C-alpha cells in the first residue's frame, strides 16, 4: 500500500495507515526525500499512530528517512508511537537515535515550528 504524502504549507506529512511491506517503506523513503527538495519543505511529519507493530526494518527506515531529510535541509519528526509499541521497540533496541519524536500530530507541528524558528534565529 502506498502512503500518501500531503503538503501542509512548509511541511510534508505522511500518515501510515496500515502495516507496510519493506518495499512500501523504501518507496515512502524515496518519495519523501525527493519531495522535500521539490516543495522546498522545512519539515516532515511521519505519523505512525495507526501502527501497532514496528519491526527493526521499519525503525531503521524511519531513522534513515530522518537523517536523509536532515541532509536535504529539513527536520523530521515521528509522531504517534503507541505506548506498547514504544516499550517493545526499546526492548528490541530500536531506539530511533537522533530522531525527533512527538506525542501526536499537534505536538509534531509545534515541534517543527519551534525547531525551524530556532534555526532561522540561530542562523541570523
Amino acid at each position: 500500500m502506498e502512503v500518501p504524502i500531503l503538503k501542509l504549507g512548509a511541511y510534508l506529512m505522511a500518515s501510515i495507515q496500515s502495516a507496510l511491506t519493506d518495499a512500501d517503506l523504501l518507496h515512502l523513503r524515496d518519495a519523501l526525500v525527493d519531495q522535500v527538495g521539490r516543495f522546498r519543505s522545512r519539515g516532515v511529519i511521519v505519523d505512525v499512530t495507526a501502527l501497532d507493530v514496528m519491526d527493526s526494518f521499519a525503525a531503521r527506515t524511519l531513522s534513515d528517512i530522518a537523517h536523509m531529510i536532515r541532509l536535504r535541509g529539513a527536520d523530521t519528526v515521528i509522531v504517534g508511537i503507541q505506548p506498547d509499541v514504544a516499550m517493545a521497540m526499546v526492548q528490541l533496541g530500536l531506539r530511533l537515535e537522533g530522531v525527533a519524536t512527538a506525542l501526536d500530530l499537534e505536538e509534531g507541528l509545534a515541534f517543527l515550528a519551534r525547531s525551524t524558528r530556532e534555526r532561522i534565529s540561530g542562523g541570523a
Partner: protein
Amino acid sequence: MKATTRPPEAQPLGADPRGDAESTAALLRELVSHLRQNRTQLREEWARRITHAQLLTAMTEEEIFAEATSVYDNYVEALETGTFEALQAYARNLSERIIPRGVETHEVVGIVLLLRDVLARSLFAKYHEDFTKLNRILDAYEPAANRIANTVAVGFVQERERIIREQQEAIRELSTPVLQVRERLLILPIIGLIDPQRARQLTEQLLRAIRTNRARVVVIDITGVAAMDSNVANHLVLTVEASRLLGATVIVTGLSPEIAQTLVQIGVDLTKMNTVGDLQGGIEEAERLLGYKVVLLGEAAQQVGESTGQK
C-alpha cells in the same frame, strides 16, 4: 454388632474393606458419643493446656475458651460426618479473624495438635482396661484426627497467603502514582524496592499517563529508592527511551550516592539520561523546558508595573 464380635487380629487391615469401613464407622460413632458426653470437661482441659503452652497469647482466656468450644464442636462434627467442608469453612473463617491479631501458624497447628492429644488421652483413660478395643478406637481416630489437623493447618496457611497476596497487590497499586504538577508535566515518585515486575508496571503506567495527559516532560524521582541493580537500572534507561519515543523528555532526580556509585560501577550507560540532584531541581528544569518561569507575586507586580510604566 458384627465388627465388635470379631477379634481384630483375625482381620488384617484392608482385607475386607466393607467390613472394615463399617467397623470404623461404628467405632467413630462410639467415639463421637464419648466426646459429646465429656464435652465440658475435655474442652476445659484443652483450653487449660492451650494457656499452659502459651499458645494464642494474643487472645484473652475468654476468647480462647469461646473459640475452643466452637473448634471442639466442629472437630467432633467432622469426626462424626467424615466430611470436612464445614470444618474447612470454619477454619478459613477462624483464620480470617485471628490472622490480623498476629496469631502465628505454629500456634494454630499447636492448638489442633493439643486437642488431638487431649482427646487421645481421654480415650486412653476410658479404654485402658480393654487394650484391643483401645487399639481399634485409635485406628479409627488417628486418620480422621490427622486429616482434621491437616485441614485446619492448610486452611490457615491458605488464608494467610491470600491476605499476603492481597496486600502485595494493594502496595503495588498504591506505590506507583503518576501525578500531574503542571500542564504537560508529570512526576513519578518511586518509593521502596523495585523488582522487575514493579518496574514493568511502572513503565506501563507512565507511558499510558504520558499519552492521556499529553505530557512533554516527566520527572522520575527515585529519592525513595534505596538500592538498584543492573536489571532495574537498564529498565529505567528503557523507560526513558520509550518515553522519548512518545515525545516526552524524562528527567531523573534524587539518585542517592550509593545508587550513583552502583550505576557507574556496573557500567550502565546513563549518558542519555537527564539527571538533576533533587526533585525541586528536577521540577525547575522541567519548567524551564516547558517555558514556564516562576516569579514571586511581589516581583510579578513590579514587572507588570515597569512594563506599563514604559509604555
